[in-house]
């Protein structure tokens, strides 16, 4: 089990009030409230960023590099995700953003959307291969990939083995710099990904794509957006850089962009983590022979809905529609009809049985019996006051010795009532009687 997993969702204790909002919304039940604060179980967290989005106190945040990371490298290349382009109001040309990135100190820009067009082309080749396990599931959303590796063992091999666009962009960007500047060493080059979500930050940090990690650092779309606002204004009216991506690459930023581009109508595209889970449950249960490709995005709207963006995802999507309108369809094409070895994920996706109660099945079965019995005694209202998202999760925590039954407020209230019953009214109730009699008389007087 991977316990050394590096996450990108963090909590600031002083802002967290210990409310149950994130607890209830976490799709993998990774959050508990302990000692008045939310605690994330790293073995269960899939970095979807739901808790960041729903926290009413802004106590959760994504941990990414900040822009000062540029200072670490001699030669810096920006890898903007296409979702960045949808953040700006009244923008009519992506060239302003490319120019703005150079003004921020980047020496070059390699658009992730360009690599996305290559991935689209490779997907079209790949999907035609014989003997593939269908439906093929997109590898682009790291939250979905992690979710599958944890909960859907039989779907692990459905995940497309071609690397996501960001990895291919990083590989090509690094190669380009080394070719153009032979004097630079690997360490001189900073390949800096501008990410819409914490899941992609974790993806990079944990070298999901194998040891070939070509990305040096990950900054947020939000930080870059605000920095760009300052520099872009000053350039109004000046000659621009041009975008090298087309309609297809930019389309990847929102749901349906990736799957509609592979020119195969037997696809499904879903977004929002709960919807994705429902789709996965159904594929897992039945033979979906009529579908070839499935695109799942953990965020509503797709990558434009990531927790590290600024704009409303649907507004961002609308802006992208008009930005890409006059662009060529797909200017980035691979040289031949083969997929280079470097673009395959050398690791593959393996089942991670994180949910196992115990490595020994007999122990696990005994624990499961106890969980069932305890769950039967609990109120079943899933209020979250105990710090667990559901009564059943609470029962699991009790059996795992992570909490005590007396954390259940409903049980405690019943115990309290019993206690009062035993005390037989004498103290508080006896004292209350004359008061209520007094006010009752007063009421009679006033009404008469």
């Amino acid at each position, binding site marked *: 089990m991977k316990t050394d997993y590096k996450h990108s969702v963090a909590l600031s204790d002083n802002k967290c009030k210990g409310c149950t909002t994130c607890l209830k919304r976490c799709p993998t039940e990774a959050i508990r409230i302990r000692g008045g604060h939310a605690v994330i179980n790293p073995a269960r967290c899939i970095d979807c960023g739901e808790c960041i989005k729903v926290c009413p106190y802004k106590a959760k945040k994504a941990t990414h590099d900040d822009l000062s990371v540029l200072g670490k490298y001699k030669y810096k290349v920006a890898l903007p995700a296409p979702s960045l382009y949808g953040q700006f109001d009244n923008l009519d040309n992506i060239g302003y953003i490319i120019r703005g990135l150079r003004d921020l100190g980047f020496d070059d820009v390699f658009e992730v959307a360009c690599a996305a067009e290559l991935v689209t082309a490779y997907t079209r080749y790949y999907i035609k291969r014989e003997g593939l396990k269908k439906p093929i599931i997109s590898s682009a959303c790291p939250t979905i990939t992690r979710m599958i590796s944890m*909960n859907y*063992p*039989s779907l692990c091999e459905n995940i497309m083995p071609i690397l996501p666009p960001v990895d291919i962009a990083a590989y090509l960007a690094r190669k380009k710099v080394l070719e153009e500047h032979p004097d630079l060493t690997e360490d001189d080059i900073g390949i800096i990904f501008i990410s819409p979500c914490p899941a992609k930050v974790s993806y990079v940090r944990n070298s999901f794509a194998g040891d070939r990690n070509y990305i040096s650092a990950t900054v947020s779309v939000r930080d870059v957006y605000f920095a760009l606002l300052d520099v872009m204004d000053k350039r109004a009216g000046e000659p621009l850089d041009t975008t090298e991506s087309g309609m297809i690459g930019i389309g990847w930023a929102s749901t349906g962009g990736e799957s509609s581009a592979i020119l195969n109508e037997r696809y499904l595209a879903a977004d929002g983590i709960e919807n994705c889970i429902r789709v996965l*449950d*159904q594929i*897992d*249960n*039945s033979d979906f022979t009529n579908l070839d490709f499935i695109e799942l995005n953990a965020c509503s709207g797709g990558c434009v809905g990531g927790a590290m963006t600024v704009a409303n995802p649907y507004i961002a999507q609308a802006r992208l529609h008009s930005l890409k309108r006059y662009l060529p369809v797909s200017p980035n094409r691979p040289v031949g009809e083969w997929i280079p070895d470097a673009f395959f994920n050398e690791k593959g996706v393996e*089942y991670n*049985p994180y*949910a*196992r*109660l*115990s*490595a020994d*099945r*007999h122990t*696990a*079965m*005994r624990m*499961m*019996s106890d969980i*069932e019995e305890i769950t039967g005694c609990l109120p079943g209202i899933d209020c979250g006051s105990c710090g667990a998202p559901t009564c059943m999760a609470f029962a699991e925590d009790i059996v795992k010795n992570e909490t005590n039954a007396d954390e259940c407020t409903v049980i405690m209230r019943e115990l309290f009532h019993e206690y009062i019953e035993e005390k037989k009214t004498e103290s508080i109730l006896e004292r209350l009687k004359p008061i209520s009699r007094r006010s009752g008389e007063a009421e009679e007087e006033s009404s008469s």
Partner: protein
Amino acid sequence: MSEAVKFRFDVDGSDFSSAGAASVMVKKKLRQLGYPPEIIRKVSIAMYEGEINMVIHANGGTAEVEVYDDVIIITLSDTGPGIPDVALAMQEGYSTARENIRTLGFGAGMGLPNMKKYTDSMEIDTRIGEGTTITMKVYL
């Protein structure tokens, strides 16, 4: 045979969208117990098909799962119309589902055949007008 862990679920006959809920729960439980993925998949497909059948034909019922160390026993019981000709119902593609059910993508006549295919044994006890009980076993 060691002590079993037992689960019981009510399958709501009025709601197609919730059909499969018991199968999803059982999958989660089996993962927690550390059963191998192939076993989990067999149990979950057989249960899912059974749940759908109970919703389409029998207005719901109950699903009971007994988990032993070496075998998982799934018992699906309903008080529906019963199956008049079991041999016919077992044929792939044979279905008595109404047209409105088929338009939802169900009723392809693969339910019972899939339940048999994904389990190691299946017994059907059916009485016309009284109901059907199907017992399936998946051995480790």
